[in-house]
């Protein structure tokens, strides 16, 4: 029998949930490390940034802006806007974290990324998941991110990150986690509205604000449709 509260058991379950995230972070992390090195960052500076910020797309944007000579204030403001979408993910996850202590919430919040959120939410939703396992997902992904970016900074040109289709790991993971979320017509409707409006918005809005706008709008449309269908019955 496996003891559910055993640390080893949590560790194993956390890691078996997080491996696609960790795998997917390798090529992106290496690519970021290479970019940061070209912008004049030492591997230590790259790794320290990955540790403090831990948000891939904003780190890419920040380093590009830094190379282009942008100032600290505009880089930080851009980072804020790019990472604001985590508000939504953190809100959804809060549905499952009612009995967790404050310290763990502080530690958990740090590791909320698009990828860890997707894995943890789907695990929480299916039951059998707790904040300890979720923390292992977050921190194993974090360690992998930091190490990959440092590796890229040390000699990205010698590593071939694009082998074995690793570039596709996160996309395939998102496809499957989306399938897990589609538990009824209302979810399919919401996903379709979100996907189509995100594509349209991404073509006309700069940056990644389309993610948040499309998600807020689509989930709102889902709630609205549900209410209309209820009132008709």
């Amino acid at each position: 029998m496996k003891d559910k509260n055993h640390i080893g058991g949590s560790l194993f379950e956390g890691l078996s949930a997080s491996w696609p995230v960790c795998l997917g972070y390798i090529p992106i992390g290496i690519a970021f490390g290479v970019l940061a090195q070209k912008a004049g960052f030492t591997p230590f500076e790259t790794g320290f940034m990955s540790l403090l910020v831990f948000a891939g797309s904003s780190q890419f944007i920040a380093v590009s802006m830094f190379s282009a000579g942008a100032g600290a204030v505009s880089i930080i403001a851009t980072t804020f806007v790019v990472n604001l979408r985590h508000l939504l993910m953190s809100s959804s996850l809060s549905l499952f974290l009612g009995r967790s202590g404050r310290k763990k919430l502080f530690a958990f919040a740090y590791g909320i990324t698009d990828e860890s959120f997707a894995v943890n939410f789907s695990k929480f939703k299916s039951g059998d998941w707790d904040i300890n396992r979720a923390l292992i997902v977050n921190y194993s992904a974090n360690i992998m991110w930091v190490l990959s970016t440092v590796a890229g900074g040390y000699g990205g040109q010698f590593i071939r990150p694009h082998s074995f289709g690793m570039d596709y790991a996160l996309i395939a993971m998102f496809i499957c986690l989306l399938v897990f979320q589609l538990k009824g017509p209302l979810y399919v409707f919401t996903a379709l509205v979100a996907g189509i409006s995100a594509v349209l918005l991404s073509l006309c809005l700069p940056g990644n604000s389309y993610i948040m706008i499309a998600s807020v709008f689509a989930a709102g449309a889902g709630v609205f449709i549900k209410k209309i269908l209820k009132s008709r019955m």
Partner: protein
Amino acid sequence: MIEREYLYIVFGMGFVTYIPRLLPVYFLSGRTLPGWFIEWLDLIPAAVLSALLLPELVTTGTPRLFIPYRLDMIVAVPTLLFAIKTKSLGGTVVTGMGLYWLLDIIFI
């Protein structure tokens, strides 16, 4: 000096990234939320995942252009079918990677 500028940037970025991650879990966890809000939050993951995914598949470049017949999109179709059929995360990731790798070799 670059050192000081670097520290400002990194600590500033870390701070503004942490706040939106922290505030909802900190203030909403354990609260009694109105029903419509819970329903809305329950739909958010499907919405966010789809909003993250679809533009990645059918658009590319900066500014983004709509290019639906990209390798990313072509591989997504069998990957999606595999995910629906098997409901296996690991299997889907390996299948998606394998197909992408294979087709990437064939087409280049």
